[in-house]
Every structure is written in C-alpha cells, then in structure tokens.
C-alpha cells in the first residue's frame, strides 16, 4: 500500500513537473517537486525506505531533466537519508518546523548538486543565487502545504473511523 502511494506520489510529482516545464521554461529552476515528494516520504523516519525512495526519486528527476543519471540520484538519496535520520531524532509537527525541514533539504540538495556538477561534469553552469533561494523556499512551501493537507486528511479519516466505531456500539 505504501509502495503504491509512493509510486502514485512520484507519478503525480513527475507529471506536475513536466507540466510546469512545458508552461514555464524556468519552472525547473524554481521548483523541484520530485524532491518535495522524496522528503515528504522520508519524513517518517524509516532510513532504508528513505534510501530507496531518494534513489528512485533522484533517478526520476535525472530522467526528467535529461540526465546525467546519478546526479540527482546521489543528491536525493543523501537528502532522503538525512531527512529520515533527522526525523528519527526529532518529531517535527509545527508548521514552521516542517517548512524548515523542506527548505533545508532543498538547500542541501542544491549544494550537493553544485558540488557533483563541479566535480564530475566537464562544463557545468550553476543556477543563479536567486533561483537557488527561490527553489529552496518553493520546496519549503510546497512541503508545508503537502504536510498540512496530509494532516487534515488523516484527522478527517480518524474522525470518520471514530464515528463509525461509536455508531456500531450505539
């Protein structure tokens, strides 16, 4: 069930990312919806699952971006693992905390991408600083919205279950 939801989440993120790029050429500079999905799924603290999710998400991002494969794969794997390890240590429930986690994850990813690009790619051109800031902030906001939505949906689901349970008893 979780694998299905992760797959659907990645599919949705990929479609939205593609749609965004087709509408606005600079969309990929300002948004990384695959990373949002990766961090979102890694937040539950399971490191192995986070590794697999990060790796798959990174490769998907590489595929969408036209390669080379392994660039986002490496960065997203490390970001997902780090997120999972942080989530094991800290329970982040407040909105500001969630915003911070996603923003820092994006910052870390961009730093890793820049480093990998400088190390491995023959001619790399790093994005301008405003775009990097925008991408970190957009990831934070998108992650926050996703987390808030998930929280509301979970609350509604629990309430419905509770109503059913009490109804059966009555």
């Amino acid at each position, binding site marked *: 069930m979780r694998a299905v939801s992760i797959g659907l989440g990645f599919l949705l993120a*990929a*479609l939205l990312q*593609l*749609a965004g*790029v*087709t*509408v606005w050429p600079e969309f990929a500079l300002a948004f990384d919806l695959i990373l949002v999905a990766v961090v979102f799924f890694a937040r539950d603290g*399971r*490191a*192995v699952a986070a*590794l697999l999710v990060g*790796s798959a998400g*990174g490769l998907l991002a590489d*595929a*969408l971006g*036209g*390669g*080379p*494969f*392994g*660039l986002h*794969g*490496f960065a997203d*794997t*490390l970001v997902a*693992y780090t997120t999972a390890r942080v989530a094991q240590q800290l329970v982040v429930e407040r909105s500001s905390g969630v915003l911070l986690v996603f923003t820092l994850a994006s910052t870390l990813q961009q730093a890793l991408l820049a480093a*990998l690009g400088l190390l*491995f*790619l*023959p001619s790399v051109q790093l994005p301008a600083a405003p775009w990097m800031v925008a991408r970190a902030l957009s990831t934070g906001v998108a992650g926050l919205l996703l987390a808030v939505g998930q929280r509301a949906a979970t609350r509604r689901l629990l309430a419905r279950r509770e109503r059913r349970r009490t109804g059966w008893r009555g």
Partner: protein
Amino acid sequence: MSSRLGRPLLFLLLGAQLALLTWQVRRTHGTLGLAGEVTLRLTGPVAHAFRGAADRIAEVRLRAQQRRLLASENAALRAEVGELRRERLRLAALAVEADRLAAALAYERAQPLGLRAAEVVFVDHSSRVRSLVIRCGRGARINQAVVAEAGVVGRVIATAGAYARVQLLTDRAASLGAQLEEAGSQGLLRGGPDGQLRLEFVPRQLPVAIGDRVVTAGIDGVFPPGLPVGAVAGVEGGTEVFQTLRVAPAVDFRRLGMVFLVDGPAPPADELVRGGDAGR
C-alpha cells in the same frame, strides 16, 4: 535490522550513483544513452501533450482577451454611433427651428403691420378656455391681436410679464367681425364646439361656395381688416333672412410654433392681403 542495513545500503546506493554518473560522463560524452533514450520516449509524448494543452489554454486565453477587446471596442463604437445619432437629430431639430425662424422673419418683414414675433409655449385645449400661452419679449396687452403666417390665431386675454394667454378663435366664447372675401358680406364669426368656426348673419340670398375665403372685417377694434380667418366648409341652418356658415380655420392650431402680436395700427385691408401673400 533497519538500522543495521541503513548505512551499508546508503554507501552502496551512493557508490552506485557515483559510478553511474562517472560511467555516463566518460562513456556518452553528453548523450543520454539507452536509459535516457527510454526515458525520453516515455516523457516526450507526455511533455508534448502538456505543451499542446498549454498552447490550447494560451490560445483560449488569447481569444478571450481578443473577444473582450472587441466587445469593449464594439461598446465604445456603439456609444459613439448613439452619440452621433443624437447629434444628428439635434442638428436636424436645429435646422427645422432655423427654417421656422427664417420663415417667420420673412413673414414679419413682409407684413405692413407692426408685427412682433412670439414663441408658443404650449397650446391648451383642455382648460375651460381654448387658448395658448406665448412668450413675447416686451410683453403683450389685453385684446392684442395674435396672428400666424396662415391667418388669425386669436387675441390676448391675460398677460404676465413676458408671457401671455391667447384665446383661440375656436374657443366657444371667441367672436370677431369677419366677411366673405369674394362677396364682401360681413357677419359675426364665433368659435364652435367641434374646433370649427361659425359665421353668422350672412344674408341667405348671397351665393356662397365651399372654399370661399373668410377674412377679418376690421369692425371689432381688435383685428385689422383683411387677415385670413378660414374657408367656408359648409352651410348650417340659420333664420329666414340669415344663414350660418361653417368655417374651417386657416390656422392649424396644433402645429403652431411661432405667432405674431399685432403692434402697429391697422392698415388698409388690400395692403394687408398683399403682405400676407408675400409672406406665404
């Protein structure tokens, strides 16, 4: 289990990703390779579909914008057309007014009588007295004769500053001395209930034809002689000696726009008729 597996798996995955990255950079020299080709085959159509949808949305938006622009332009043009139509109507009304004033001026200049133009404010057929209210510059005096281009209109029965009320010939209480222009026989002309006039005391032996002109006789001290009053429209009873003629007024009281107050002294009748003909 999970924590024990986590770190080795991390290094394994990171190593694999780095190896993949290094291999690609060395091997493909910027090309995508098989995996990239497969990915492109999968994502290309999707991106193309999105592009098409985006283009269609942009086209729809463009069309909507153009439609809005055209609608606003259309509304502006309609308003302009309406304004021009109103302006044209106004100019047409001004032209009619100018023609009317020019004709009145020509009539006034052609008449030997001392005439003063007065504007008809409204015609009152509904009150007890059939009358019209006029506006004249210097004011009018009671019993002053009022004429139009076509003939006699009535006499002033009330004044108030620049305004005056004129009793129409067709009022039942109105009367004046009149005569048949051809036969020269005089009689008393009164207003009738049907909007026509009655010429009384016309001798029976006098031959009268329909359409004979009736003019003022100049014997009542109000109207100068020879002013057109109307035309014989029929014969109605009377006594053994006199007959009563039905007279259609020369003036169409519903279409009066400008009338004239007779200011000067009454000149000879033949001179008046000639002046009236010249005015018409």
